[in-house]
């Protein structure tokens, strides 16, 4: 390189004057926004692929039933009136069992959050109960509560109880202490502080715990019905499965999925109405 070239061209790594550039944007993401149609689109695409595959033959009929056949089975189920015969008992078991499990769970969780003696006594107990596969206890529940509805309610209640407790006391622990201090400094009664400060403050955590608890409730519902019920989605799926009737099996599974989506949507609506104050 000669001196002449150095004089005429500015050095490449030290640009003297450059075109102004827009500063690159890097602040996006990490802020979930609602895109409802995306969820529906994912379902639709998966179902269309399954339909296409089973029709074209690259998915064998033994691997997966045709979605359209499942739909037809579902239609039959609806017309014969069997749908509601199965759905009715299932829904009432789900409702009763999870109602007891969730309400007792929230109450115990709040007590653990508020009283250190209750915490010291109950937290190890809950930790011991949580990992027990509740289905394994079904025979025990049958002995305690009978073969009828009682044992099913108990199983679902017990299964939803533990996750609700854990979510609730975590949520109570996370309530802003300065708000509680504020309540005390204005002379609010203990009960007012619990009702107007602790419970609303714990609500976000309780609701997200509810999503998990209710999904567990659906799983346990089916398990309980598979082990001993004439009617119910679980019984229906078990019958279909033992006959290798894949259409009916899938019709049953779809009902469960729809139930799960509905429960989640209902909680979503509650969250939007109750937690509108969150930033």
């Amino acid at each position: 390189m000669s001196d002449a070239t150095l004089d005429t061209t500015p050095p490449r790594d030290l640009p003297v004057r450059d075109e102004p550039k827009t500063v690159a944007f890097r602040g996006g993401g990490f802020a979930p926004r609602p895109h409802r149609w995306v969820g529906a689109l994912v379902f639709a695409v998966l179902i269309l692929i399954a339909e296409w595959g089973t029709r074209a033959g690259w998915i064998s009929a033994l691997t997966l039933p045709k979605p359209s056949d499942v739909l037809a089975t579902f239609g039959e189920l609806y017309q014969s009136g069997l749908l509601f015969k199965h759905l009715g008992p299932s829904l009432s078991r789900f409702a009763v069992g999870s109602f007891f499990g969730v309400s007792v769970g929230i109450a115990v969780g709040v007590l653990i959050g508020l009283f250190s003696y209750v915490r010291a006594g109950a937290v190890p107990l809950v930790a011991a109960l949580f990992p027990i596969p509740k289905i394994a206890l079904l025979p025990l529940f049958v002995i305690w509560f009978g073969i009828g509805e009682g044992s099913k309610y108990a199983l679902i209640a017990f299964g939803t109880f533990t996750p609700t407790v854990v979510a609730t006391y975590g949520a109570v622990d996370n309530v802003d202490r300065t708000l509680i201090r504020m309540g005390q400094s204005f002379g609010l009664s203990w009960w007012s502080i619990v009702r107007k400060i602790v419970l609303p403050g714990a609500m976000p955590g309780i609701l997200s715990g509810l999503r998990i608890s209710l999904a567990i409730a659906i799983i346990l519902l089916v398990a309980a019905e598979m082990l001993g019920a004439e009617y119910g989605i679980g019984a229906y799926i078990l019958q279909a499965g033992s006959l290798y009737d894949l259409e009916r099996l899938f019709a049953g599974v779809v009902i469960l999925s729809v139930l799960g989506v509905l429960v989640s949507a209902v909680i979503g609506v509650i969250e939007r109405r109750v937690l509108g104050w969150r930033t």
Partner: protein
Amino acid sequence: MDIRLDAISHSYDDFEVLRDITLDIPAGRIVCIVGPSGCGKSTLLRFIGGLERPRAGRVLQVGEPPAGCLNPLTYIFQDFALLPWRTVEGNISLVLEDHGIRGQRAREIIGDVLARTKLTDFAKALPKQLSGGMKQRVAIARALAVNPAVMLMDEPLSALDSQTRELLMDDLVSLWSRQPFTAVYVTHNLNEAVRLGHQIVVLSRRPGQIREVVTLDTPLEERQFGDPELDAKQKYLWQLMRDEARAADAELLNV
């Protein structure tokens, strides 16, 4: 109603925080407490409000709180402590509900305190929609609603920018001029202390002891931004505090 602190000492386990604080807080006056970080100012305020008990000494209430006073000792917090799920109105009604004040009477009180803090248009807003200065005005309105005998303020303006702080100091002065209230005002900011304090209590570094009580006679309304006499007082206070603050700072680093 006066407040008397009688030989208050306190330690958390072996950690001595306050030593032998004796102080009178006369009715209708604003007493500012300044001191280096960690010297026990917030702790002292919690004792005065009955949220904690000192190891030794007593907090005394001299005389009865005036009639119609719902919560004699009322706090205003640095971080506002508004319930985010309640509107401005709801946050104020929170502290009235427990005294059985609802309906028309509650609406009258809420309307009155919102007017006094210039918040009438924001009655239905949620805290997340308000700026920091407005949130603190809501907290002040909430404190006024219970008609306190003594207001206990722990760095109420520290979370705000300096312009908002000036405006809120003016608001506090005009509230006080219209109806003098008693206040204990903890602050880091000497400028706030000389603008709002009738008495300024300077605490030493931890364990906090009273180093000096500075009295300011200029009426609150006449204290202007940049007043030379106040500046002189502020400079004097800073000289009192500088060495303490420096020592306190070094101490915190050594912990």
